[in-house]
């Protein structure tokens, strides 16, 4: 998964230059799409909420709109391997204007859960039992 960080990289760019970069970015997406490399990709609205605390009692506006760390969108890649994903990230046309691309392998199993395999195995049992009658209905 590619996470695009720093959604305000267009600040200070003139209209023509901005238009040119956006055309390049759109062409980049289109090229990846035609090569079948994109599973899913969407921009995120700048403002959301940050939930924390027991029972999610803290609900704050966020992320901080001007943040260079804020995630502006994502791209779920269908890459052959991790180095292809990094190469694709490196070809992103807005990098020169300050965008950062975080490249993260997607996993089948949560790493936190993986640190505790016995607990996960025990926790899965009730779910499996619940799923059995559903499978029978479907059959």
């Amino acid at each position, binding site marked *: 998964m590619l996470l695009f960080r720093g959604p305000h990289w267009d600040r200070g760019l003139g209209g023509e230059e901005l238009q040119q970069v956006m055309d390049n970015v759109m062409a980049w997406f289109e090229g990846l799409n035609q090569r079948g490399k994109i599973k899913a990709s969407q921009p995120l609205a700048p403002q959301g909420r940050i939930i924390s605390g027991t029972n999610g009692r803290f609900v704050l506006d966020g992320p901080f709109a001007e943040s260079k760390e804020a995630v502006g969108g994502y791209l779920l890649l269908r890459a052959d391997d991790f180095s292809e994903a990094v190469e694709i990230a*490196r070809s992103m046309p807005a990098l020169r204007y300050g965008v950062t691309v975080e490249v993260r392998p997607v996993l089948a199993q949560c790493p936190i859960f993986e640190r505790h395999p016995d607990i996960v195995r025990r926790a899965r049992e009730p779910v499996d039992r619940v799923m059995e009658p559903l499978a029978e209905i479907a059959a």
Partner: protein
Amino acid sequence: MSTTTIKSDYLLLFRGNVWDRGLSPAQLQKVVSDWMAWFERLKAEGKCAGGHPLEEEGKVVSGKQGRTVVDGPFAESKEAIGGYFYLTVADENEAIEIAQQCPGLEYGAVVEVRPVADICSVKQRAEEYSPRQMVEATA
């Protein structure tokens, strides 16, 4: 008579990838099984289209032509994104309510709720900035 409900899409980004440190086996057992049951329930209710944990270590690409490629995010970070759910729900309130059910919250996990946008905010600004050029480009 049928009623049409407009659904909107949200991304839940789970932040913090070491909140399991220091939990007792019983606490871990509970949070792991609660989390899996939560995910299964949301999928069964049609509110969650999918989700993935992310591998803790990836690469962060930046600079002109992606010349800077460093390991990241930091393995032990409260800010690092550990995974995501893709929600299709009625409105922001429902997305927030679901985020508040995250079983990791009481141990320090943070959930960022972000509306999925139809159009990239930079592209939108580019269009507002130079409507004439956009018309020419699409003509």
